[in-house]
């Protein structure tokens, strides 16, 4: 295992110390339990947005805490959902008196821990609404399974709902924006290499020099299918077809296209992916009205990418364009 770390057991703590040292103007970081909150939290009269999940997906979520996006993030151990006491403490720290939205990615662990946290918060009299992200079309959805994973749409939800909260919408309205974003977002990912969990010390799965894994999640879970490496044209076609047909999107639809790197993939490749995606979508008469290209929801050092499409309406566009000031996303301010 080759990583810029000391003891694997200290990675999350040392990362948080780094974030605290780097961005005191944006966030403050609390330890035991671990959480990251806006430097000016709580913002009185504003609905607070709290998200969280395992570490290893940076900049998500800690890098999205700040004006116009999240009020708090709860980082768990690497790839492990954080615990209810983190979520409760974070929710309390950012509650501006008009309620807290929990943004929860659809993994059994995240769901159950956020459930317990919401119970704890409500027991203390706080208003909490939980919203679920489950946008990964690589997973078959069904009433009898854990359902789809939450992946790329999470980033877009945090930005868009963050803007809705910032402009003073109510708890119910902000939660509804989240649910609309989730309903309008679809993703699919692929890996060229596995990631290596620091505590495990070896790759989660092995891929041959000419193989790739299609339909992976963000935790080094095996994907839907392993196949021979192909030109990026074919890879994008496979992924984008799955995403577009799941909606299905039709001619004239406007989307936000999000090309995401998994942590070990450089920008040069992501732009090549975006070029293919743009050609694919314009061939179907789908317009990319906004885009986001970069490594925003990662899987440690995994090489690969994911594609997320969010069907846009005017409200989403306005909220997307609204100012945001976080370590990971920043514009307009």
């Amino acid at each position, binding site marked *: 295992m080759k990583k810029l770390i000391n003891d694997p057991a200290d990675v999350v703590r040392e990362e948080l110390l780094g974030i605290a040292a780097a961005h005191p103007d944006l966030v403050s970081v609390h330890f035991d339990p671990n959480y990251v909150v806006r430097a000016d939290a709580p913002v009185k009269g504003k609905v607070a947005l709290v998200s969280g999940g*395992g570490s290893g997906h940076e900049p998500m979520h800690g890098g999205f805490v700040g004006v116009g996006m999240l009020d708090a993030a709860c980082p768990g151990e690497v*790839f492990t959902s954080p615990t209810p006491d983190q979520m409760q403490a974070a929710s309390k720290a950012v509650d501006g008196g008009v309620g807290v939205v929990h943004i929860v990615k659809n993994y059994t662990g995240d769901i159950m821990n956020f459930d317990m946290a919401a119970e704890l918060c409500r027991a203390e009299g706080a208003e909490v609404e939980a919203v679920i992200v489950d946008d990964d079309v690589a997973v078959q959805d069904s009433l009898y399974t854990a359902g789809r994973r939450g992946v790329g749409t999470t980033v877009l939800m945090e930005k868009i709902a963050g803007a809705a909260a910032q402009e003073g919408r109510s708890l119910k309205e902000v939660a509804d924006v989240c649910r609309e974003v989730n309903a309008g977002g679809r993703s699919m990912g692929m890996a060229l290499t596995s990631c290596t969990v620091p505590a495990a010390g070896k790759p989660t799965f092995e891929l041959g020099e000419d193989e790739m894994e299609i339909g992976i999640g963000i935790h080094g879970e095996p994907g839907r299918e392993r196949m021979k490496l192909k030109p990026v044209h074919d890879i994008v076609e496979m992924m984008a077809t799955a995403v577009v047909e799941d909606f299905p999107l039709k001619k004239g639809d406007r989307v936000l296209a999000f090309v995401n790197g998994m942590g070990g993939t450089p920008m040069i490749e992501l732009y090549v992916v975006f070029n293919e995606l743009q050609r694919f979508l314009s061939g179907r008469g789908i317009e990319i009205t906004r885009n986001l290209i970069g490594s925003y929801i990662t899987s440690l050092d995994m090489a690969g990418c994911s594609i997320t499409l969010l069907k846009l309406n005017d409200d989403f566009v306005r909220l997307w364009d609204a100012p945001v000031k976080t370590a990971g996303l920043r514009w307009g301010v």
Partner: protein
Amino acid sequence: MRVKVPYDRVVRWVETFAATIAENKEYLTDLDSAIGDADHGINMDRGMRAALAKLDGQPPGDVGAMLKAVGMALVSSVGGAGGPLYGTLFLQLGTATAGKSEIDADDWLAALTAAVVGVQARGKAEPNDKTMVDALLPARDALEEAIAEGESFPDALRRSAQAAEQGMKATIPLVARKGRASYLGERSAGHQDPGATSSYLLLKTAADTWSDG
């Protein structure tokens, strides 16, 4: 005379379980690599270490309070699916044994029943979903049956652990319908469920530490 397990012996079970998890940390994590995210052993080990640290400060004599403290430690240190599930399991064991300084077979049956109900309420898993429920539920049922048949507490514990083991092994051919393994669909078949394995170890250590000497 009915066999009773005193407070210290219950503590010893928790300690033995912690040691067993530590020994099997890599094994459980490897099972989780195949169909999950390669952390079940790491998570459970972190949790049981936190639980052991809590035991020290525990006022002696109250089995329920002690087991609740274990549950709280798991909830606030494990995370993932294992944290709430094993946390709930121990919290329910604790609630059912509140104020007791020793437990007998009926106490344990009541506690284990409450624990399984709690785990199912939390995780919504049914039998054959390929989860820890597949070890826990048969263990509870076997315990009830053995007690009803008049077996001694030690013997009933052994039957309960055997049923857990069978349940654990029976997860191998199953296609997962809950938890992270369910994302794999058919590819999840052919692998033993990590959570069912740690649950078997939980009941096996109970049988081992409560039935000898």
